């Protein structure tokens, strides 16, 4: 059940996108999301969708694999569409008993749905093409200026990468605990949502205890390997800009320009 989530996973492949500097991909994704909310008309969405399609082709990640990530937000998507469709006031185009659909509602629902879909596809494409470590490295470097404001940037990045490393281990542990409890007659499969949620509590307690124990062990192992924070640390894989990164930046600027121009139509 937890394994179905594809958002945040890495899809190993050898493409230009995979080799790009994580900083470019991170800022590019952020810019893309901001642009999505600047878009005013159909032209803008068309540009955004076409650009994303081209990038997906470049990434060599199968389209079906990316779309599967949408499954997890389908309920959210339906809710957004329904609320916008039925609750927006304006000129009515369809009326039946208490249901009233307006012209503004249709266009709002449409634009929200497209935005949401493109947003999810765009950001999951970034995580598909970037390893967790590159991602945290990129974030550490992009947030670097915040160090002057005493934000513990290195520590946050380190915590994130350790969290990512322990996700599969804790999933395995959850599985083990569930099986051990099922072997003793615990029931996780029948009953309504509330009953199932209640059945999860006895799993969480041992999971937390073991997570704390692991954290203690890991902290000791890190200290034994001379870890003492970000000060004086060197990097095994330092981030360096290459030629493709420059080209990517040009493409990003072009995309911003296109989006801004599309607002005028």
């Amino acid at each position: 059940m937890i394994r179905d989530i594809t958002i945040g996973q890495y899809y190993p492949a050898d493409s230009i996108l995979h080799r790009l500097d994580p900083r470019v991909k991170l800022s590019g994704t952020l810019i893309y999301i901001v642009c999505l909310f600047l878009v005013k008309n159909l032209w803008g969405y068309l540009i955004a969708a076409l650009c994303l399609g081209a990038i997906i082709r470049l990434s060599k990640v199968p389209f079906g694999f990316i779309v599967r990530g949408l499954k997890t937000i389908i309920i959210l998507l339906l809710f957004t569409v329904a609320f916008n469709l039925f609750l927006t006031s304006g000129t009515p185009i369809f009326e039946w008993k208490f249901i009233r659909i307006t012209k503004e509602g249709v266009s709002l629902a449409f634009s929200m749905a497209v935005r949401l879909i493109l947003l999810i596809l765009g950001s999951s494409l970034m995580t598909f093409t970037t390893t967790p470590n590159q991602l945290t490295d990129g974030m550490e470097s992009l947030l670097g200026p915040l160090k002057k404001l005493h934000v513990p940037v290195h520590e946050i990045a380190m915590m994130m990468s350790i969290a990512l490393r322990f996700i599969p281990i804790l999933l395995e542990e959850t599985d083990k605990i569930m099986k051990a409890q099922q072997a003793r007659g615990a029931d996780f499969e029948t009953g309504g949502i509330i009953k199932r949620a209640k059945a999860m509590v006895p799993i969480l307690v041992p999971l937390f205890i073991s997570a704390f124990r692991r954290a203690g062990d890991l902290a000791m192992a890190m200290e034994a390997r001379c870890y003492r924070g970000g000060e004086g640390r060197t990097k095994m894989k330092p981030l360096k800009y290459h030629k493709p990164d420059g080209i990517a930046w040009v493409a990003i600027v072009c995309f911003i320009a296109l989006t801004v121009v599309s607002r005028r139509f």
Partner: protein
Amino acid sequence: MKMIEAKKLIFEYIRRDEEGNVESIDKALDEISLDIEKGDFVAILGHNGSGKSTLAKQINAILMPTEGTLYVNGMDTKEEDKLWDIRQSAGMVFQNPDNQIIATVVEEDVGFGPENLGVPTEEIWKRVEKSLRAVGMYEYRDHSPNKLSGGQKQRVAIAGIMAMKPQCIVLDEPTAMLDPDGRKEVIRTIRELNKEEKVTVLLITHYMEEVIHADKVIVMDDGKVVMQGTPREIFSRVEELKRYRMDVPQITELAYELKQKGMPLPDGILTIEEFTEAMKRLEQ
């Protein structure tokens, strides 16, 4: 030259109640004095609660002595400004391989130690390659540690320590969570590092089979060093070992029992080969 030198080392775990009053004092280490020479392979034996893990943590300066002194590579572990030098010269491998691997890729994990020491980038890559080759895990450098077996993970952890170029490795029950194949794999790696890279090895274990190749065996019980000597010397004292709730290797015990029943076998037989040799000599 001495790698580790302990002088009347005492360590107490002090348990306090909620108001901070001392409830009880457990003496985990009781006047331990020992010397470990550079390049030696030393095994420390002891059943649970004998203080062997506490001693290991002292060597890595994770714990400080309550009384007495401990010198690691000539440095007093109580000197705070030497802390990182001590940890660099005496690396430590722990029991659970999962809880000591930090990165999501094997080579990045091996690079973690040198990164912390501030080693330049090109030098880190050289060290990572060399130590991964030394433990025979170079082909797995771009794998995720989650997909490796227990023995392989533990070898990656050892490579992570080797990349810091320590003079001494302390292994705290590195095989306790592994299957027999993984155990053999790890012990073979440790022996090779000791022979080829001349690293001092301090292996803490409760598996007797793992200590027969050591240069020296130290037996601990209740926070004290109770026996010291070569494996052969130690294992010829079967009765004494049993008193400290230790098992001797099966073949050693068999030879011992046979000898008790009147067969003229030599003391301290450690391997099946030695045993069959001795039996052959008896037949002639």
